[in-house]
C-alpha cells in the first residue's frame, strides 16, 4: 500500500514537472523550412530576404530612428520605413497613440493614425522601453500595458491588415552615462528586462508577435555588447543594426 502511494505521488510530481517544462513561452529552434506561428515569440525561420524587410514600418525610440541615420534600410538615409516626429524619438506614455509624426508619404506633420493609414504597411515593428524606463517601473505593468494597447488599437484601426510585432527594447552598455538617472546601469538593464517581459505578455494576450532581438545584442552580463554602441552606451552602430535586420529576416512572421 505504501509502495503504491509512493509510486503514485512520484508519478504525479514527475508529470507536473514535465508539464511545467513544456508550457514555457520559449520555443525551440525549428528547421530552416518552417516558420513557427505558435506562441508570441517569433522563432528562428528561413531567411525571409530583403523584400520582407522592405515590407516593414518601424516605430519606436531614437534607437529605432537611427536605422535611418545608419542607412541600413531601403532608401538609405531617406528611407520611408521609419515613423518618427521631427526629433526622431518617442516615449511610450498615455499620449503616444495620438502623437504627431512626419508622414513618410507627404513629409508633413500628421497624426500617427493618419500616417499609418496612408502607408498601410504589411508589418509594423514597435520597440519601446528605454525612454521612461524608471517611470514605467514605478507606475507599473498596468500603466505600461494601457499605453501600449492604446497605441496598438490606434494602429489596428488605421490599418487593420497590418501585422503588428512588438520588439524587445535594446539593453544599454556598461558605459551608459547614468548622470541623469537615479539608478545604476545594471538596474536600468533589469528594468528593461522587466518591461520586455511585460511586452511579451502583452503580445501573447493581444494575439500579436514578439521579436526577441536582444538575443543578438546582449553580452553574458546582460549588457549591450560594447562593440555595438557608438560611444554613448545606448545608440547602435551600423553593424548592430545589420545584425538586428538579419535577426528580423531569420525570425519571420508569415
Amino acid at each position, binding site marked *: 500500500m505504501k509502495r503504491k502511494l509512493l509510486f503514485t505521488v512520484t508519478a504525479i510530481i514527475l508529470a507536473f514537472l514535465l508539464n511545467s517544462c513544456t508550457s514555457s513561452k520559449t520555443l525551440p529552434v525549428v528547421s530552416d523550412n518552417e516558420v513557427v506561428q505558435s506562441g508570441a515569440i517569433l522563432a528562428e525561420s528561413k531567411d525571409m530576404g530583403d523584400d520582407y524587410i522592405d515590407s516593414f514600418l518601424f516605430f519606436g525610440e*531614437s534607437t529605432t530612428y537611427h536605422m535611418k541615420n545608419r542607412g541600413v534600410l531601403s532608401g538609405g538615409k531617406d528611407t520611408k520605413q521609419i515613423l518618427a516626429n*521631427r526629433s526622431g524619438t518617442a*516615449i511610450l506614455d*498615455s499620449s503616444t497613440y495620438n502623437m*504627431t509624426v512626419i508622414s513618410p508619404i507627404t513629409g508633413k*506633420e500628421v*497624426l500617427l493614425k493618419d500616417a499609418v493609414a496612408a502607408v498601410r504597411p504589411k508589418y509594423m515593428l514597435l520597440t519601446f522601453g528605454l525612454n521612461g524606463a524608471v517611470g514605467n517601473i514605478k507606475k507599473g505593468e498596468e500603466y505600461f500595458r494601457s499605453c501600449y494597447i492604446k497605441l496598438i488599437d490606434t494602429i489596428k484601426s488605421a490599418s487593420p491588415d497590418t501585422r503588428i510585432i512588438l520588439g524587445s527594447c535594446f539593453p544599454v552598455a556598461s558605459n551608459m552615462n547614468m548622470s541623469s538617472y537615479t539608478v545604476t546601469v545594471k538596474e536600468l538593464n533589469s528594468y528593461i528586462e522587466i518591461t520586455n517581459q511585460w511586452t511579451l505578455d502583452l503580445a501573447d494576450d493581444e494575439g500579436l508577435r514578439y521579436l526577441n532581438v536582444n538575443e543578438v545584442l546582449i553580452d553574458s552580463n546582460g549588457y549591450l555588447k560594447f562593440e555595438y554602441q557608438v560611444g554613448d552606451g545606448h545608440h547602435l552602430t551600423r553593424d548592430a543594426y545589420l545584425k538586428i535586420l538579419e535577426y528580423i529576416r531569420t525570425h519571420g512572421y508569415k
Partner: protein
Amino acid sequence: MKRLLILSITLFATASLLACSNKKEYLDSIPCADILNEVEKQLPIELGYESYDTDHVKYNFERYDLDDDHALRYSVRSDNIDEFGIFHAPDEKAKAELLAVTESYIEEMKKSKRTFIESYAPNETPKLDSAEVRDYGNYVAYAVLSEDNCELFFETVERLLEK
C-alpha cells in the same frame, strides 16, 4: 498710554477689515472643460490640443478620487510639451489634498521627463522650470507652458472664476 493703546487697536482692526475685504471669492460651478475651452482660445497652437483621458490621471496622479470634475489638455505636436489642466474639488479639504497631489505631479514631471526632453526638444526645457500650480476657491489649476503663456493661462482662469 491709553491713547496709544486705543490707536494701536484701531489700526489693527482697520487692517484686518481691509484684508478680509481684499480676499477674492470664486465661482464654484463652472465645468472644467468650459474653462479650458476658453484657455485654448487664448493660447492657440498649431494642430491644437488633445484631452488626456482618465488613464492619464489614474496613473500619473497619486490620488485620482479627490475631484468631481477635471479637464487636462496637451499639445498634439509631439515636439511641444505644452500642457495644462484644472480640477474641481467638492470641498476645501479635498482641494487642499488636490493641490498637494498636483504639485507632486509637476515635481515628478520635472524630475522624470527632464532628461528625455533635454535630449529630444531642448528648447522646451524652460517650460518645465516655469511649470506652476495655483488654486482658485475649490479649483486647482496647473500649467506647463512658457513663462508668458503660464501667466496668460492663470489670468484667464482667474478671470473666468472670479466673482
